[in-house]
């Protein structure tokens, strides 16, 4: 990311006189513990992007050795005019938005159910978080074969019928598996929010004659907003990069019905070996992400200030 990358190299207001030696040494002593991590992060995460930028200007198909040449922005023209990337972009938005929204809503419901004392609450909580802990690859296979399979899957086994869920409702199938995995995550964050709510406020609302619904919509929901935002934001960061579920359950199909950007770029790189095009698509995705992330960082930043103020 370029937007906020600063190494803190120079202070905003530099004194007119050159800093005396002990002062400078003092500052470097402060920076020293930070440097290994910072350098590591820059080398491993930032340099590859510069390389991507370079590759995106090359016409390079790995299947035709020696065909590599500089072609300027032609790859970008290909990528942006080709319908595939646009379709993949749309699929990514649909997949991410629907999984995030559904898991936040379900997570909210479950968190409310768990925000009271009842026999076995600890056990129910443990049962509920388990889907998030199952390896995503294993979960995707489980849904594909053990749950969606038309002849011996659990859904048809219980409901009857012989619907082929994955080929008839591909997007829903992928989203359902993702929602199952991510609802516990949302529930945990929202539950933590509910439990940090002051009981006095709720009690006061009750004394003032507010019904449970009014208390919920007027007091609890506004209070929960930062937690809902945080859950949605973190969920989006992970879900926009969904690969395992698409790779496993639908392989992007049928046709291109569930091909999202990560899977599309994977195909361009390792099935078509169009390195230049893949790099250009990568750059486009990064630019899109920077735009979205700028908003996301603002959300985190406001949470951050709230936490500081507390």
């Amino acid at each position, binding site marked *: 990311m370029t*937007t906020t*990358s600063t*190494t803190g190299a120079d*202070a905003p207001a530099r004194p007119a006189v050159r800093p005396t030696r002990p002062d400078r040494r003092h*500052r470097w002593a*402060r920076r020293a*513990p*930070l440097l290994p991590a*910072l350098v590591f*992060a820059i080398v491993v995460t930032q340099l590859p*992007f510069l*390389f*991507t930028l370079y590759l995106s200007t090359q016409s390079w198909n790995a299947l035709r050795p020696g065909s590599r040449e500089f072609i300027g922005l032609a790859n970008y023209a290909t990528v942006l005019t080709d319908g595939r990337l646009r379709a993949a972009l749309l699929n990514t938005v649909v997949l991410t938005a629907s999984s995030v929204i559904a898991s936040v809503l379900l997570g909210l419901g479950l968190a409310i*159910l768990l925000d*009271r*004392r009842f026999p*076995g609450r600890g056990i*129910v*909580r443990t*049962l*509920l*978080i*388990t*889907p998030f*802990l199952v*390896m*995503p*690859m*294993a*979960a995707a*296979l489980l849904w594909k074969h*053990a*749950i969606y399979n038309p002849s*011996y899957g*659990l859904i048809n*086994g*219980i409901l009857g019928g012989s619907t082929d869920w994955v080929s008839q409702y591909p997007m829903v199938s992928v989203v359902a598996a993702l929602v199952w995995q991510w609802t516990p995550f949302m529930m945990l*964050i929202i539950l*933590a929010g509910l439990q940090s709510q002051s009981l006095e406020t*709720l009690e006061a609302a009750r004394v003032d004659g507010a019904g449970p619904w009014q208390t919920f919509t007027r007091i609890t929901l506004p209070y929960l907003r930062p*937690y809902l935002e*945080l859950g949605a934001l*973190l969920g989006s960061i992970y879900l*926009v*990069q969904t*690969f*395992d579920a698409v*790779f496993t359950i639908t392989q992007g199909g049928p046709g291109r019905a569930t091909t999202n*950007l*990560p899977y599309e*770029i*994977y195909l361009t*790189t390792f099935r078509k070996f169009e390195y230049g095009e*893949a790099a250009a698509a*990568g750059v486009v*995705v*990064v630019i899109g*992400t920077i735009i979205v992330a700028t908003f*996301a960082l603002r959300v985190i930043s406001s*949470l951050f200030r709230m936490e500081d103020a507390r």
Partner: protein
Amino acid sequence: MTRTASPARRSAGRTGAAWTVLAWLAGLLFFLPVAWMVLTGFKREVDAASNPPSWFFTPVLDGYRQVFDRDITPYLLNSVMASVLSTLLVLVLATPAAYALSIRPVERWRDVLFFFISTKMLPVVAALLPIYLLVQDLGMLDNVWTLIVLYTAMNLPLAVWMMRSFLLEVPAALIEAAAMDGADLLVTIRRILLPIVAPGLAATALICFIFSWNEFFFAVNLTATRAGTSPIFLVGFITSEGLFLARLCAAATIVSLPVVLAGWIAQKQLVRGLSMGAVK
């Protein structure tokens, strides 16, 4: 998560019972696929593929035996190596960095903090090609150390944020007192900081372990038979034909078990870890 009951949240009577039943049903419904996975792993292949599904059967270990016959062990060992070593490396890098962003902050620490989180938002898919080419050039394809380095970078921002939130909880007075007593930095770290942030270190390690253990994208594109981690063992099942469900479920149970157990044991740390220290 344990909290004394308050009159406001203890609903009594029939509605209370209804909510309890609903909560239990929701919990069981979400757990059902996991339960089904574990059960199916103990079935014979013919029972596993039966329709209607069979709920009662004599448990057998055929599925597990087949999974080990097909040599899942090296995959598991690669996973252990990649996740444990990358987790250690993350802690070694992130803890001093978090110190320099909380207790004795560098100037512009806020920018640095946001730089770390912004690396987490970059789609890994855009870095795949350069990383692949570079790793290929270095002759490091299908090598566990490649994964270790990448997983370290992947978890570093998370760990920096989490460790920072734990270090902020160390009372400043305590550190000042140590400095007044003339304790040098190392002594302060060992005697005062470490005991207080030890649970935080454990929570951070847990989260990093979970994410590296489950990682698939880099593993599938950069490794093959020698350095393949446990999700790679599962890839073969994607297009399987015939009777394989019991075997698949046995394998899925084995590879999920470490993280499920770790998550169950450390439920309380999980929330804080997943929210990078923002939610306590």
